[in-house]
């Protein structure tokens, strides 16, 4: 390239970039650091940044006092369960739309998208009452169902945009070579579809893990995932910042890592393919 950035310019941007980056990331770093402090040090004034007695005590306490693991399992069941169920329903639909589109395929897609734009409070009352009447309140099953339905449009859309990029000619070529439908799927389509499905799974796990409207409204002690469990730290009795930080660190770490790996797919999934 003709215009190589001069070193001094690059250094200036390095300083600016890192300062701003660290500033934005700071609340996460601070949570991480606080999780290793004692409760006393967590509220110390002036605050101690690195030179405190690092302890793992909070992580033990979080587990002992509130059965943290139970909430982790709830989060895992709800996010993986809804993602799996969603895929099962969405893959055939997206497949059909991408490979044998009809006159109304586009309308159906747009309509699916419009269901995602329904504000949850619009259906809060009936869903709550239905859940109450069918004993689904505070159950993993109930949340898996709701989470599957609210994310289904995004899954279908994302899969559709990926499937559409698989060239149809390849299918025809395979068919001319005498491949059966089964072979066609296993040897030709699956390898090309897997990356798209994988990205869809990642995005959906992130969305389901962090969902905080239905989880807060439909669960109590038993089926509460981490979002709802951590909300219980908002009660004003006592300052449990170190424990809050430990619980938070554990709750966000896995999703942060998944999120970092799926940045590109995130753009595509959340803009419904409008920005690539």
């Amino acid at each position, binding site marked *: 390239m003709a*215009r190589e950035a001069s070193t001094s310019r690059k*250094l200036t941007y390095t300083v600016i*970039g*890192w300062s*701003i*980056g660290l500033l*934005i*990331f700071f*609340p*996460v770093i*601070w949570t991480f650091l606080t999780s290793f402090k004692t409760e006393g040090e967590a509220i110390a*004034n*002036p*605050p101690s940044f690195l030179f405190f007695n690092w302890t793992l005590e909070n992580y033990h306490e979080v587990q002992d006092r509130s059965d943290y693991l139970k909430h982790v399992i709830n989060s895992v069941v709800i996010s993986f369960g809804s993602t799996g169920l969603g895929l099962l329903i*969405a893959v*055939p*639909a997206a497949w*059909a*739309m991408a*490979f*044998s589109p*009809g006159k109304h395929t586009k309308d*159906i897609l*747009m309509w*699916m*998208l419009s269901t995602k734009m*329904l*504000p*949850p*409070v*619009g*259906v*809060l*009352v*009936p869903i709550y009452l239905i859940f109450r009447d069918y004993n689904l309140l505070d159950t993993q099953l109930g949340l898996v169902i709701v989470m599957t*339905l609210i994310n*289904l*449009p995004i899954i*279908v859309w994302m899969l559709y945009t990926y499937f559409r990029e698989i060239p149809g000619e390849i299918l*025809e070529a395979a068919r001319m070579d005498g491949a059966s439908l089964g072979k066609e799927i296993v040897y030709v389509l699956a390898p090309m579809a897997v990356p798209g499905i994988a990205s869809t799974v990642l995005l959906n796990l992130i969305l389901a893990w*962090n969902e*905080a409207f239905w989880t807060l409204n439909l669960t109590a002690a038993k089926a509460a995932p981490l*979002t*709802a469990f951590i*909300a219980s730290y908002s009660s004003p009795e006592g300052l449990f910042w170190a424990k809050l*930080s430990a619980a*938070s660190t554990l709750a*966000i770490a896995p*999703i*942060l890592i998944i*999120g*970092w790996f799926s*940045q*590109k797919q995130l*753009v595509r999934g*959340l803009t*419904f393919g*409008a*920005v*690539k």
Partner: protein
Amino acid sequence: MATLHTRTSARYMMAPAVLLLLAWMLIPLGMTLYFSFLRYNLLMPGMEEWTGFLNYKYFLTDPAFDDALINTLLLVGGTLLITVIGGTLLALMLDQPFFGRGIVRLMVIAPFFVMPTVSALVWKNMLMHPVYGLFAWLAKSVGLPPVDWLAQVPLLSVIMIVSWQWLPFATLILLTAMQSLDEEQKEAAEMDGAGAISRFIYIVVPHLARAITVVILIETIFLLSVFAEILVTTNGGPGTQSTNITYLVYSLALLQFDVGGASAGGIVAVILANIVAIFLIRMIGKNLDR
């Protein structure tokens, strides 16, 4: 390729998704609409009766609704302003080559992956607490009186928290759009003698316009429904100072058990969201044709 046979099987393949979403949309929404015309309180079972538009009248004339509507607009507008401007600047910065750019990008997008209840509580306690919070310490160390953020400026505090969560989204989308800009076009403009500023105004901004529109529309849809951040920080208060429409409907439904009133509020929220949704759907639809 689409033979009659494949068309039929395509219908079967789409059926579960279509029917489930249809049910998910029509049944509860129909129930909300129906309840919104009833006097129906869970604390008074068996007293349900048809009241026509009375719930709407109560909801729309309730002073809390005015506050909630204004708060919703401020929350959405304020957050959009911060995230779009901030996101553009961050995307411009991340588009420049510098050392460790990949790591900085990871740090910038991180807040988006933090669950809403965690970000709200971390901000509420460890940053905004009037005595032990970091902001209070910073204020004191430069000789200013500490601010009790969530009590004195509750809505602004919520806007700050929500903006922190959504800044990465705007940045990431604008950066993606920026990187899809044709390098040759920029270089050609540069060779024709266009300076950095005019290159930005005449080439980058028009190219970004579409992406910015997408950011605004999608964020609006989500921001209209901000809930967890308000629930764990201010509970909508003090008074109704940080109550938005979503929170108002929630409190009618699950704190006051007023099914009729909450349903009317829910329908109002749906109408508000639909106004935005129509624009978004049109835009994405156009994109699908290309």
